């Protein structure tokens, strides 16, 4: 099969749903379009939206809060605008130390956070199953992180839910309509991120009751879920900087070449990437990104570099160098913990990884798996 790389960022056409116009991906086109947006006007629309949904005596909106830089930055920005958001955390599978530190820092900075910690016996069984079947040990997390904040909004009567960004717009995908950039479409999320109904997972000793945190509530009338990124400028690097400066965020320090950049501009480092500020809360994320590389042929460094290129933080040449260096770096740092979590030995793990490797994207030459079309 033919793989095409975006000529502006580094995203390949093997990214699910990505749309190319000529040799440019839709995320890069959108990054250009964004520059013409009147954000003063959008901020006014946001204020009106909050006003419209003001029902709860204390909270203005629910903000799903993973513990990471993006949701933390949103919370801080909303607070600075004078709002009182209720943060809702659906617990990570395997919190990292730095993730716990950052989560606590946000709370200590002055926010109410509801923490939904799920049954780990169930979560571990699902992680194992979904790693085997889908190469994605966090599939149920994707379901829960979508269901739990909405359920909270319904139950507490806080009708406005502010999500971070529309991934299909910002990072490449299919944008169904202009309103899909603003309003979170449940069907879109379930179809693209979860892929089936959590009720289907009630098997092998797990019951439908066990699936409750993963099932999207039915009675969502009156709830409006929107993307912060539609109303305000969106830049993940600036989010990370804000969290570092204002809320004492730490960063991952894993893998080799931690100080690859002499000036340490992209501070920290995670396995598979050249930075340590993105997706650092869950130990299992490193494996997830590794599997993305196995399945789709692009790694965590390509993903991060593309986002930074789109916002003008690095050139394509710089990004390409980083992608070539770090994509597919083995998720060594947390692997023992992750394997224990999934109740899996190393041999089984390796077999499963290979089952997910797509031979249409990879070929084995001289005993080494190589991309048929490497980043270029």
């Amino acid at each position, binding site marked *: 099969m033919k793989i095409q790389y975006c000529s502006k960022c580094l995203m390949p056409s093997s990214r*699910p749903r990505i749309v190319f116009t000529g040799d440019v991906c839709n995320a890069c086109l959108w990054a250009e379009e964004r520059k013409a947006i009147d954000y003063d006007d959008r901020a006014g629309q946001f204020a009106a939206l909050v006003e419209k949904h003001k029902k709860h005596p204390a909270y203005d909106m629910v903000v799903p809060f993973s513990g990471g830089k993006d949701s933390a930055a949103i919370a801080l920005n909303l607070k600075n605008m004078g709002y009182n958001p209720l943060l809702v955390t659906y617990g990570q599978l395997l919190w990292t130390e730095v993730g716990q530190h950052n989560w606590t820092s946000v709370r200590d900075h002055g926010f109410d956070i509801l923490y939904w910690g799920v049954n780990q016996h169930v979560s571990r069984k699902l992680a194992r199953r979904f790693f085997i079947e889908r190469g994605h040990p966090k599939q149920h997390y994707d379901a829960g992180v979508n269901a739990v904040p909405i359920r909270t909004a319904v139950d507490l009567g806080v009708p406005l839910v502010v999500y971070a960004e529309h991934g299909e717009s910002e990072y490449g995908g299919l944008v169904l309509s202009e309103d899909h950039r603003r309003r979170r479409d449940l*069907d879109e999320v379930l179809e693209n991120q979860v892929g089936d109904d959590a009720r289907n997972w009630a098997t092998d000793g797990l019951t439908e009751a066990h699936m409750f945190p993963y099932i999207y509530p039915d009675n969502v009338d009156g709830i409006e879920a929107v993307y912060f990124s539609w109303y305000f400028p969106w830049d993940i690097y600036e989010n990370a900087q804000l969290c570092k400066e204002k809320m004492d965020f730490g960063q991952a320090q894993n893998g080799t070449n931690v100080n690859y950049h002499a000036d340490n501009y992209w501070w920290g480092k995670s396995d598979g990437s050249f930075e340590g500020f993105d997706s650092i809360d869950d130990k299992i994320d490193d494996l997830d990104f590794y599997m993305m590389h196995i399945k789709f042929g692009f790694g965590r460094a390509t993903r991060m570099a593309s986002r930074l290129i789109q916002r003008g933080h690095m050139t394509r040449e710089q990004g390409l160098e980083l992608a070539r260096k770090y994509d597919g770096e083995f998720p060594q740092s947390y692997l023992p913990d992750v394997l224990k979590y999934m109740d899996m030995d190393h041999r089984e793990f390796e077999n499963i990884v290979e089952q*997910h490797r797509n031979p249409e994207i990879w070929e084995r030459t001289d005993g080494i798996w190589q991309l048929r079309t490497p980043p270029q």
Partner: protein
Amino acid sequence: MLTKRVIVTLTLNGGSLYRTKNFNPDRLYTMNFVDMELADELVILDVTRRKTARRDFYDRVLAFGDQCFLPCAVGGWVRTLEDAQHLMRNLGADKVVINSEAFRRPEFISELAEKFGSQSVVVSIDVKNGIVHIDQGRTCTDHTAIEWAQEAEEHGAGEIYLMDMTRDGSLRGYNLELLQDIVASVKIPVIISGGCGGWRHMAEGFDAGADACSTSVIHHFTKTSLNAAKTYLHENGHVVRL
């Protein structure tokens, strides 16, 4: 009592396994984790946009035939008797799925039925707002789904593979109204497809008269999933092969 069938549909784009949404291939999947031990039948469709070299698709079908012992219906770009013959004689297909060519030339159904028997001829009908669409959904015809299903049956179709295009790739459930209309209009078995998000949707499909429910959601193809689906259907009073 005959068992109801759970059918797995694989959509191949240029020989690669893709998810489709609203008839557009939009996500590449790795074949390796498709496990269909508990499915009752397999439908393999070539959804490649252009009729280019068919070799990649044929290679895939052949590879599937070697490792899969399920009854297998194959279609997509079947235009001639020779196309159908190649699929059935050389590539191991048990049935052939036809669509646009059958609509343009209904006698094609009779030709195939005469040569291979009606039981081998599956007429696939793509529907949007009650109207039949052909050419991978790009051409709107002047036939209602009911009219065309009846005509196809008269010409010797053995089965109808019914798809609501607007539900393709969604998880919202089958179009039950459309299904009921077609089931009431023909005597041949109807396979419903498009929109299966969970086991309860299959139960709804059988309740509405489907002879078989198709799912093309890759996450339903695993042994664990199919087992869960069958168990759910069995517990809810449907006769399925466990």
